[in-house]
């Protein structure tokens, strides 16, 4: 009887151990399976990854597609389709060795020919890719063997890997087979079969305005990944609805959340993961510097802007007249960094030049008087902003009030995003605008926003010294010398106020406590392949 009890006890204990271990993961051990439900605040434009604008498309591209390299939050490069790479001693040739087990979702191999095809496609003017200008330093792409590809540069380019990893989508490899079989319109529409990548998820369906579904790609080159079965992305534009859906547990992850509602989400969901970091997007109160002398948009014959063509007025209004601390306190509830430098606080080689533009309304008034503005001749200008983010209007309102303190009248003109783009890109009439443009992983990626030749250089300054700075910075391979150049450039821009930063523009992502494994890397890298759901 004693033996029977003993054996029963052992059996019960073993059974209990088996029961407890079955379905109970070791703490921190990823679980396979489940559907991640993601909310976007804006619509995906279309699904041709090489040409579509907007972060929402990029974040899909980063999961459906793969590239050569990725970048970690601390700035290290890790291989994606490339397992290793080398830079030649003359800094002109990158040689990438590709992994042998990388496949596109259509079953074709990711080889050197596919890499060459993809880069050539991006560089082709007929493609009209927004990334084309990033490949200006590239001379050619050569296939050495099926798993070795070389990118040859015209001149040394210090940010080649940054560009391949994270300028916009980074390089997204296209399947030559699928690209030749399907048309651009097929890809844009998101026809399954046409949108083919080599990433951890394959596109199942995209219904514009409703949802985008991507499923695990069973032959992804990283064994065991992704953990998730499926990712479903829905567009929920209103932040109140996003909060309600998150609180109700209907969504797991909000990919980009409105900063002014973060405190409410925290209060409603104490266990929610609020993911953020140092700002990598600048919030600008840009001032127009030149206008076409002959009234023809984009004319090379420029005249100073009637108000902000004078540096003293730019300094009075944009430098000493704006209280950046107050803007941050009111518009962002303190959740941003007051910042003068063109490079946001979280961007590589950023420099704090706030001391160059302290808030000084007395000095602002004195400078305006020097130019002839005062009670007898009040300065009035138009402050344009757009409806893309509600915070723009708040900032504009605060600036308006601050202008009134120095005797300046700022009339706010609120337009929608396309109207704003139309005015600024086509050299239309504007004085100052508030906007946050786009996020910058390096100062170099800002080049196409501030070179004299760029359509996106809205202030239309004609100072080629800026172009020269960018060119030298991009070619300087020594990090120390590069940082010194970056400092010079940022101080120069702050002195000339071709860029007038107010603050960083904070970026927030919100995740349910059960969502594990996500690595925050601002807007640059949004990857779900290591995400798992702890349910």
């Amino acid at each position, binding site marked *: 009887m004693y033996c029977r009890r003993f054996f029963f006890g052992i059996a019960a204990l073993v059974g209990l151990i088996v029961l407890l271990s079955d379905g109970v993961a070791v703490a921190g051990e990823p679980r396979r399976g489940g559907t991640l439900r993601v909310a976007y605040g804006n619509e995906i434009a279309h699904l041709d990854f090489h040409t579509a604008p907007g972060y929402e498309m990029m974040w899909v591209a980063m999961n459906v597609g793969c590239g050569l390299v990725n970048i970690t939050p601390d700035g290290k490069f890790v291989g994606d389709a490339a397992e290793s790479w080398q830079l030649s001693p003359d800094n002109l040739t990158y040689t990438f060795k590709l992994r042998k087990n990388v496949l596109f979702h259509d079953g074709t191999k990711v080889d050197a020919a596919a890499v060459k095809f993809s880069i050539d496609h991006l560089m082709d003017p007929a493609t009209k890719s*927004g990334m084309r200008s990033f490949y200006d330093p590239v001379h050619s792409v050569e296939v050495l063997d099926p798993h070795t590809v070389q990118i040859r540069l015209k001149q040394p380019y210090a940010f080649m890997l940054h560009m391949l990893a994270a300028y916009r989508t980074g390089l997204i490899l296209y399947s030559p087979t699928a690209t030749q079989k399907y048309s651009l319109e097929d890809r844009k529409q998101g026809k399954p079969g046409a949108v083919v990548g080599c990433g951890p998820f394959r596109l199942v369906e995209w219904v514009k305005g*409703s949802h985008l579904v991507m499923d695990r790609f069973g032959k992804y080159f990283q064994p065991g990944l992704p953990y998730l079965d499926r990712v479903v992305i829905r567009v929920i534009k209103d932040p109140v609805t996003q909060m309600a859906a998150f609180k109700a547990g209907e969504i797991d992850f909000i990919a980009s959340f409105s900063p002014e509602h973060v405190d409410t989400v925290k209060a409603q969901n104490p266990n929610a993961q609020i993911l953020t970091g140092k700002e990598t997007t600048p919030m600008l109160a840009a001032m127009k510097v030149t206008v076409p002398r002959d009234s023809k948009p984009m004319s090379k014959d420029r005249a100073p802007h009637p108000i902000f063509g004078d540096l003293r007025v730019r300094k009075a209004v944009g430098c000493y007249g704006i209280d950046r601390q107050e803007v941050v306190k009111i518009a962002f509830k303190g959740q941003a960094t007051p910042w003068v430098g063109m490079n946001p606080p979280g961007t590589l080689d950023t420099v704090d030049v706030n001391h160059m533009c302290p808030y000084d309304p007395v000095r602002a008034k004195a400078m305006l008087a020097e130019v002839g503005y005062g009670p007898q001749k009040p300065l009035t200008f138009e402050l344009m902003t757009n409806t893309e983010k509600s915070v723009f209007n708040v900032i504009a309102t605060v600036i308006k009030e601050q202008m009134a303190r120095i005797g300046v009248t700022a009339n706010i003109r609120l337009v929608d995003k396309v109207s704003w783009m*139309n005015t600024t890109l086509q050299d239309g009439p504007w004085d100052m605008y508030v906007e946050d443009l786009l996020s910058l992983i390096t100062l170099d990626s800002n080049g196409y926003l501030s070179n004299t030749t760029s359509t996106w250089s809205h202030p239309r300054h004609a100072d080629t010294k800026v172009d020269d700075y960018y060119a030298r910075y991009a070619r300087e391979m020594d990090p120390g010398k590069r940082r010194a150049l970056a400092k010079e450039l940022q101080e120069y821009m702050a002195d000339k106020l071709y860029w007038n930063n107010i603050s960083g523009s904070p970026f927030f992502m919100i995740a349910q406590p059960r969502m594990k494994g996500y690595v925050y890397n601002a807007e640059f890298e949004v990857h779900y392949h290591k995400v798992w759901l702890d349910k």
Partner: protein
Amino acid sequence: MRVYVLRRLLQVVPTVLMITLVVFVMMRSIPGDPVVALLGDAYTEEDAVKLRQSYGLDRPLIVQYLIWLGKLLQGDWGASILSGRPVLQDVLIRLPVTLELIVLSMGVAIIIAMPAAIIASVRPNTWSDYTAMTVALAGVSIPEFFLGVLLLLVFSVGLQGALPSSGWVYLPGTCPTVVCITGAWGNLGHVLMPAIALGVGRAAILTRLVRASLLEIVRTEYVTTARAKGLGEGRVVLKHALKNALIPAVTVMGLQVGFLIGGAIVVETLFAVPGLGTFGIDAILARDYQQVQGFVLLTALTFVVINLIVDFTYSFLDPRIRYGA
């Protein structure tokens, strides 16, 4: 009657065409075009000019309109300039969603308005009357968006997800895409709050109108005669008076469809419902001309057809009304 019907149907065509022409011109008067949105941060003036040429956006307005019309007559509604998706395909996916929302909103309005109006009219200048009218005033004063947010906060957030906050579940057998959730209860759960947000304002208007109409009808001689004959009050009001009181209400209900479509834009955006409303507003904001034309065409057709049905309802409600005489 047949002649009348044919004449009314023929009138639909120039009406709808005029609407599409006006919107066509208006859209092109707004700053910006779809090429700006399409190119985004890839925008260069050179590429923009080439794209405009390829989409025919550099041609004279009247030529663009006639080309669009010509394709429409062949059944081609065009494709979204931004996404390349066929407009007709997207419209047909979204139309049932918005139709369901509009019909249910009107149902909500009728369910609220009819009893309230009847009670208010049979007991005028009493607390029942004052209550009904106050609630009606409140209903018409609250914007759909605000009511929608209140409903969200109460039913989705406050009651721990009693009703879903956003999205859509299709009725069984109506899934238009590869991946979607279907279910009658799920559909009801998703449509309830948007329908209430939209319907309450309409209920308020209907309540006031039906009450006023009923008050007038109950004083007529034939109603007095019905009472004198010993008919119960309920029968007098519901069988004899209400039918005639509904004629102006039916007219207003037809006109309300226009407001419902407009309100659907706001409510669908708030509740992230994948209907025609969000389709239309996205198209306008992106200057996607083809999508806007498709949205306007369908909306105009819906409005005109519903009002046609409303007109035909009159002869059912009042046999004295005949057409084609």
